[in-house]
């Protein structure tokens, strides 16, 4: 389970690469030497290795999981996914993840903006800090938040076993997604266009709304989508602070774990497949969206 999740995450990062692609490409005015170095095809052996590796690591386990979830037939699968406790866990998960994604979209854009456009002492330190949630084991995030917002909170804030607690924990671990996808686009963004708009009399809000935001939008949305996809499957960071209260703070990953512990693996597999479908749909929509905006930008140039 952990491995598939890690894989899903990295798969997500690939998407970040493609969506921020147009911006990055514009900068590289490629010479012929650079191009010829990269035209070397890996050949059929390379292709075979790729397919084999992907099958072993991703496709076969996913297929096995899906088959397993139908061990009790279609009705067994349907019963497991529509059990009230399962539906509640999925509902809580999606709801909290949407909130987290929205929070990230706003805060992540602000953070990226400050990091790119402002200079202040300790900027590189703050910049490095952004990646900390990626490097930190998520369970550590849970302990960190529990010591600050738990029952023995030194600041008197108790978020333990509440939905706001879940949001804080997930916002912590998904912080880098939006920041890191918006940052490079913002660096590439043409300041001259903004200056031109200003000289034509546009105020700051108009410049942001009409000039900056459209160019940032694909990156913001893909970052937010990745944060959402990550939040949906997150386990470690919510396991301590979430409280695991069925119907209120139990997220889908905790429900899955519980079903395994009470020896109902088919239920666990069925809910896993539902979760997988949600994540996959999210990534797919993002991909379609980012490809379309990339095409649009291509056409406009």
């Amino acid at each position: 389970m952990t491995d598939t999740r890690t894989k899903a995450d990295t798969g997500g990062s690939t998407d970040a690469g493609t969506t921020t692609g147009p911006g990055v490409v514009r900068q590289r005015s490629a010479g012929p030497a650079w191009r010829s170095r990269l035209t070397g095809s890996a050949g059929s052996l390379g292709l075979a290795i790729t397919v084999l590796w992907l099958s072993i690591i991703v496709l076969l386990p996913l297929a096995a999981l899906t088959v397993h979830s139908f061990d009790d037939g279609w009705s067994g699968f349907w019963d497991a996914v529509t059990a009230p406790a399962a539906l509640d866990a999925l509902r809580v998960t999606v709801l909290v993840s949407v909130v987290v994604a929205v929070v990230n979209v706003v805060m992540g854009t602000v953070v990226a903006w400050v990091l790119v456009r402002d200079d202040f002492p300790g900027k590189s330190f703050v910049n490095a800090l952004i990646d900390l949630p990626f490097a930190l084991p998520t369970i550590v995030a849970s302990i960190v938040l529990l010591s600050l917002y738990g029952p023995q909170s030194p600041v008197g804030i108790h978020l333990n076993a509440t939905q706001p607690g879940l949001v804080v924990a997930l916002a912590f671990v998904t912080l880098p997604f939006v920041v890191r996808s918006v940052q490079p686009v913002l660096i590439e963004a043409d300041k001259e266009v903004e200056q031109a708009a200003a000289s034509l009399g546009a105020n700051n809000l108009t410049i942001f709304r009409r000039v900056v935001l459209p160019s940032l939008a694909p990156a913001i949305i893909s970052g937010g989508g990745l944060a959402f996809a990550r939040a949906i499957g997150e386990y470690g960071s919510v396991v301590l602070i979430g409280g695991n209260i069925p119907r209120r703070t139990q997220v889908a990953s905790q429900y899955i774990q519980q079903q395994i512990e009470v020896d109902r693996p088919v239920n666990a597999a069925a809910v896993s497949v539902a979760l997988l479908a949600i994540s996959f749909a999210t990534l797919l929509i993002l991909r379609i969206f980012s490809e379309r905006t990339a095409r649009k930008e291509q056409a406009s140039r």
Partner: protein
Amino acid sequence: MSRRSSSRSWFSVRRGRVAVALTALAAVGLTAACSGGSSDTVGGDAHSGGGQLTLFAYSVAKPGYDKVIGEFNKTEAGKGAQIQQSYGASGDQSRKVKDGAQADVVSFSVEPDITRLVDAGLVDSTWNADANKGVPFGSVVVIAVRKGNPKGIHDWNDLLKPGVEVVTPNPFSSGSAKWNLLAPYAAESDGGKNPQAGLDYLGKLISKEHIKVQPKSGREATETFLQGTGDVLLSYENEAIFSERSGDPIEHVIPPTTFKIENPVAVTKNAKNPTTAVAFKDFLYSQAGQKAWAEAGFRPVDPQVAAQYTKDFPAPQKLWTIADLGGWKQVDKDLFTPDTGSVAVLYDKATK
């Protein structure tokens, strides 16, 4: 122009992907390296031999084994023995061993978790043929409450008062949960003579009003309670004693009528180190071992040792036992079998 630039973007993306793939590999490698052993090793020094043992135990036994293993290492047979310990929900631990986890000694909360291994051919069917029936220590079911007992809980019926929230683990994974539910069941049904009365009580207790969380093990239930959830924690007496001694703001009530907890221990057939494993199991019954259990808050089975600790372990007015209810085989079949047992059905209905 547009085509060329698009092909270039594809390459740059591809280059990005190689980097991402390498990062992914590194990440997977790191994860694998970090997620190594979850169990901790306690034991004497590795050089003096004595052998390595793997112990699979239920979660709440940890404070007991922390003491007992220290004492075992002081004996001739246990000198230098290293005991790898794994703790978790009793049923979950039992299924892990059945599914192939290597264990020399298993120590579960309830007998059916060992019976599962007997059925799987991993534990000899004579494991409980000794004088103590394979049970080296035990406890009683108690009601733990917040310090000062603000809700005035003294007996089983107090749990049904409106608004009283009870924390007890999930009986499908936890052994503790089964004991916790058997205690009021036996009390209300007069030791099983009137099963319906017992089930009526459990039907009221196992409802959305009283049971809102489903921790997987006794230990997790205690942690949930200590973090502020619920008014009442049903638990082992030893767990309540351990928590109180650690300074947690709780106290426990022994209800007038409660249930005797018997925690079985067995050596597996495929033990890698059978001599040390048997020596360790035998040590649990020895005077030193029994004293260590008593010191840790568990009720010893040796009458001589028990006599020395009567002050720590007051006798309730009435103590029902699993034998009074017809033995584990009967009780597990009637009450706890998933989908058919009457308590299992009640629990599923309330938590689904």
